[in-house]
Each structure stands twice: as structure tokens, then as C-alpha cells.
């Protein structure tokens, strides 16, 4: 399956760089930030791959200086019964990535959640609001520099 995916990707998009890795039978491909929409379109629409089920979009905060965040896409192909992980690094100084909600509509809310929790902006997203926290909240809770107990006074309580 790994060869098929790489072949199809190379055939459709000859100019992209793809790195692969495997852990516990899960295939991961790492792509450049700028190519993410193109890669996802091929993965979804190619007749041999058909990754039509976007399970999840999330991000990882590595708490490092370069490429602080990694955006992770979990895809599933019902045709091949195969699960694939796609990754793209995002730097903190340029904290944005193109949206894939035009490819899978289900990515819409996942990206809003990532925006809420990590503060990564998704370009061209149709409705980029906070998912869980109130709109006035200033922080991004899942970043590693945010304490579990929160910042006192950042969320108001009603008067007694």
C-alpha cells in the first residue's frame, strides 16, 4: 500500500517532497506546508486511493524553537481499508496553514478546534471561530506554555 500511495502522489504531483515513516503498522507521510491542499486533493480523489473519510485533524505542540507545531491529518480509505497519517510542520513565526475544509467538509470543525486550542490560523477557512472557549478568551489552552489550571481571571464568573 505504501508504494501505491507514493506512486500515485509522484505521478500527480512530481514536484513535492514526501518523507515517510512507519510505527506500529501506521504509515505516516510528511509533506511541506504549502503542498497540503494539493496532496489532500490527490489522496481523496485518486481512483486507487480514495481516502474519502477524514477521521481527524489535530496539531502537536513540540515546544521547540523551529517548527513548533505539527498539523496532523488522519485519513481512512474505505476502499482499501487503510489508514494514513499526513503531517505538515508549522512554524510559530508564520503560524498558518491552508485549510482542507474544501476537500473534506468534516475538516471544518476540526480546524476550528485546532485554531481554538493552538492558535494556528487556517487560511481561506469559511468560518474560523473558536470552537469551545468563549470568543473573548485570549489564550490557546493546549499550548505547552499554558498551565492546566488556567490563568486566574481570564474567564469571568457571574456575580454572586
Amino acid at each position: 500500500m505504501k508504494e501505491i500511495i507514493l506512486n500515485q502522489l509522484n505521478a500527480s504531483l512530481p514536484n513535492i517532497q514526501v518523507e515517510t515513516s512507519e510505527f506500529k503498522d501506521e504509515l505516516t507521510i510528511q509533506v511541506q506546508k504549502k503542498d497540503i491542499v494539493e496532496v489532500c486533493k490527490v489522496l481523496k480523489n485518486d481512483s486507487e486511493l480514495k481516502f474519502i473519510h477524514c477521521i481527524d485533524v489535530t496539531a502537536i505542540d513540540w515546544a521547540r524553537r523551529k517548527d513548533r507545531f505539527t498539523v496532523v491529518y488522519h485519513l481512512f480509505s474505505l476502499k482499501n481499508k487503510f489508514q494514513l497519517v499526513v503531517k505538515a510542520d508549522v512554524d510559530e513565526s508564520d503560524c498558518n496553514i491552508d485549510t482542507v475544509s474544501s476537500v473534506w467538509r468534516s475538516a471544518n470543525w476540526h480546524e476550528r478546534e485546532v485554531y481554538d486550542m493552538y492558535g494556528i490560523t487556517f487560511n481561506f477557512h469559511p468560518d474560523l471561530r473558536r470552537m469551545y472557549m468563549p470568543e473573548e478568551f485570549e489564550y490557546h489552552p493546549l499550548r505547552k506554555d499554558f498551565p492546566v489550571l488556567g490563568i486566574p481571571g481570564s474567564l469571568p464568573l457571574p456575580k454572586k
Partner: protein
Amino acid sequence: MGLEAKLTQDGFLTTKIDALLAWSRKSSVWPMPMGISCCAIEMMAVGGPKYDIARFGSEVMRFTPRQCDLMIVAGTVTYKMSHVVKKIYDQMPDPKWVIAMGACTSSGGMYRSYPVVQGIDQFLPVDIYLAGCPPRPDNLLNALIQIQEKIGRTKGRDFQNKPLSELNVIQNN
């Protein structure tokens, strides 16, 4: 029943208005099921056939706050939700009582995290704190009985147009 026996003998009984009011209030507590999370399912079980809250005169769960006098806050209250809870509490007519059902409502419980209010007594006057995560239905019935005892001790003049938080009698009972 003692009451019917009394009626066949004399045809009347003497009591204080306070006692009559408290007795009628406590025997028909109408709960407002503020079901937020897991505890709401146990609250549904209390309304179900096995535990049957109707035995205690409280089966009339009203989802509109205007008709209720007991708010059961069942589930984790987050900062975002706290404004809603408070607003609904304010809409309930006096006199009113509050049960904080479960550990996370009473104290934050297992959620020592940024969005969770560490105990709803930070913005609501609470009458009964109920232990358990979630409490078993028997425990909720026990809380209801305790609330009834508490209501039974109140007097009519305790509620003279004052907000509940200012009434010492109820808070100290």
C-alpha cells in the same frame, strides 16, 4: 392517615399557618433538572421506574425555571456554562433551593483544569452538597429528603421579598 381520622372525629384541626405552609411546600417540591453531564443520566434514573422520585412528590420535573423551586445542578459547570446556570437560577421564583449534585458541581471534583468552575458555591447559594461521581440514585433521594426536612423548618415570614442569600434562617439551618 391521621388526617382523615381527625376529620371523622371532630371535623376540624388546629395548626399554625407557618406549619401548614411548610408542610405543603415540602411535600411537593418541583425540581428544575439542570442536567449538564453524567449526573443527568443518574437523575433520569431517579425519574425512572426503579427509583421513582414520584414517591416523594417530586416527579414534576419542569424544564422551565419559572415553575420550579428546587434546582438540581447535575454535572460539571464550566465558566462558559456558569452564566447560563446563574441566569436560570435568577429566573426561578423565591423561595428556591439548590442541590449541587456530584463532586464536580460541589468542588470541581476530578477536573482540576482551566475551564471548570471549582465549586458552584462561588456564584450560587447551595443548600445540599451531594457526594459521589456521580451519586447513586438513592443518594439523590436522600438529598431530596434532607431538602424536604429543611423546607419543613422554614417559616412563612422568612421570605418577605428578600433575596435568598440575605436570609440567615435558611442559610444556617
